[in-house]
């Protein structure tokens, strides 16, 4: 950015805020276009697109929960275990013959309580960092899930229980073919993301979550009950993991011990790719969605091209580093020296 052209420079500066907001979407669009050219027959087919959404459905819930935690400059390593424990509880309650409406609510309550446990631990026990509390509960929740289930899969749920993860919305009334249905999980993602977008951007609590991430001392000096907000955030994160469990129950028709193994790292990766800052206070719901989509499309596209899953790991790792580096460069241009 030498003094080549003043106008060009100021135009560039004007574009920065938009780039900051929507740059990640641009990356997503570029990926979609590239994948389309690499796999013109398959990638944008109805079947494949709905497939991508089905695959990312439960991850998107974990990522959204972890995102809110990251905005407070915290971290939640236990979301995968919360989901597994909630799934196991759902499976046990379902096998015990409870009516479907009870079965459907149990993972949500279980997830919420796990998150509440995290939040209270972090605030009441005054843990030096949420990393430690949630690292502990990562083991505690998964261990508990295995204890109550005996470490064996529990399979077979009713259609009502499986609806959110497995249901299809028929679109033949629109003149589409039978195979061109809308997955219920896609609609669920949209609804949940819109609700949380409103929560984070339009409500006072959402604003306080950003304020705590920006400067916890300022939040405290402003009379905000920081601990209370943190407990709410971790509880909501657990609740979203519970929704993830419900979706996964529908998709796999089974509660199994390895559910959500390492998915906390996927969730964190999606947030980071989506532009959330580990230092807190920064990131958008739209960005997290883009981050989840980018990871989903990358995995899907590489599968379509028959690339080994080992290369997928290498590529996803590279994208994380690259995304954050682009972010570093952007801030160099954007901040006042």
């Amino acid at each position: 950015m030498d003094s080549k052209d003043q106008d060009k420079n100021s135009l560039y500066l004007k574009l920065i805020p938009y780039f900051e907001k929507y740059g990640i979407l641009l990356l997503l669009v570029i990926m979609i276009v590239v994948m389309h050219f690499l796999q013109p027959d398959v990638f944008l087919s109805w079947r494949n697109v709905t497939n991508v959404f089905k695959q990312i459905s439960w991850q998107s819930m974990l990522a959204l929960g972890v995102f809110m935690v990251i905005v407070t400059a915290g971290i939640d390593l236990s979301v995968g275990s919360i989901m597994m424990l909630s799934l196991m509880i759902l499976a046990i309650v379902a096998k015990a013959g409870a009516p479907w409406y009870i079965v459907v609510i149990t993972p949500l309550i279980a997830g919420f309580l796990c998150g509440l446990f995290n939040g209270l631990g972090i605030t009441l026990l005054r843990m030096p960092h949420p990393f430690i509390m949630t690292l502990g509960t990562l083991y505690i929740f998964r261990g508990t899930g295995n204890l109550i289930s005996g470490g064996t899969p529990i399979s077979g749920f009713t259609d009502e229980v499986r609806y959110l993860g497995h249901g299809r919305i028929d679109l033949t009334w629109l003149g589409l073919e039978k195979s061109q249905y809308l997955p219920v999980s896609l609609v669920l993602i949209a609804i949940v993301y819109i609700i949380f977008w409103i929560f984070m951007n339009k409500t006072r609590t959402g604003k306080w979550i950003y304020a705590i991430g920006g400067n916890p001392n300022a939040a405290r000096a402003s009379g905000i009950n920081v601990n209370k907000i943190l407990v709410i955030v971790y509880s909501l994160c657990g609740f979203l993991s519970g929704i993830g469990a419900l979706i996964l129950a529908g998709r796999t028709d089974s509660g199994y011990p390895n559910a959500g193994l390492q998915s906390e790292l996927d969730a964190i990766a999606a947030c980071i790719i989506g532009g959330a800052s580990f230092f807190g206070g920064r990131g958008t719901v739209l960005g997290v969605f883009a981050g989840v989509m980018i990871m989903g499309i990358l995995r899907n596209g590489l599968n379509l091209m028959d690339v080994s899953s080992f290369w997928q790991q290498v590529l996803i790792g590279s994208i994380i580093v690259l995304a954050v580096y682009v972010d570093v460069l952007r801030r160099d241009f954007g901040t006042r020296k």
Partner: protein
Amino acid sequence: MSSANQLLLEAKNVTKYFGTITALENVNLKIHAGECLGVVGDNGAGKTTLMKVLSGLYKPSAGSLHFEGKEKVLESPRDSQNLGLEMVYQDLALAGNLPIGENIFLGREPTTNLGLLKFLDYKKIKELTEAHLGKLKINVKSADQKVEELSGGQRQAVAIARSTAFNAKVVIMDEPTAALAIKEVGKVLDLINGLKKTGVGVIVISHRMDDIFAVCDRVMALFQGTNFAESELSNTSRDEVIGWIMGKK
């Protein structure tokens, strides 16, 4: 001009012990409407402790606080804020990731309530912010600018704006110019003079004689936790005040 105005806040014989340490002993302080009081003293003289007592962060071990003639017991900073006593902290206590307006109203945002949910009234925040910044003659590009994009002086101005957004009667400022570039100091001092004109009582804690002599009407020195000296500014000199800080009369 100060003596003609209403007495806002008075501390009477305030004493504060921390264990066996006496941080303040029988300290008296008065601040009137439209007046600026400078509080000087060496490190450990008790300035910060006194300010924390005034802002409700510490409860005095003995002595009393009187606001507009009535004795008040402050249990928390919220209590002092409700009386119209605001503090501008040295570390500014702003959230850099939020815009100016949202910082000014942080914790006290205007909202529209829908059941349990409180939705922020962004339009009102913007209007109130612009009106308030205009009243204080603080120039920023836009109320939507993030605080981290501002210079040190602009941040200090936002912190002061924040302290006066809710009809503050007394504003206590801890080293308001300490972190500023020289060219920005003047702007902040102008702001303090502006506050005085609107009838706010300002207490400035500062090491900088330039600041004290630019804005204050009265100066008091603390030395080892006691009132050491006090004077109208017109009756003293820099050298004398510097002597007080070092415990010489």
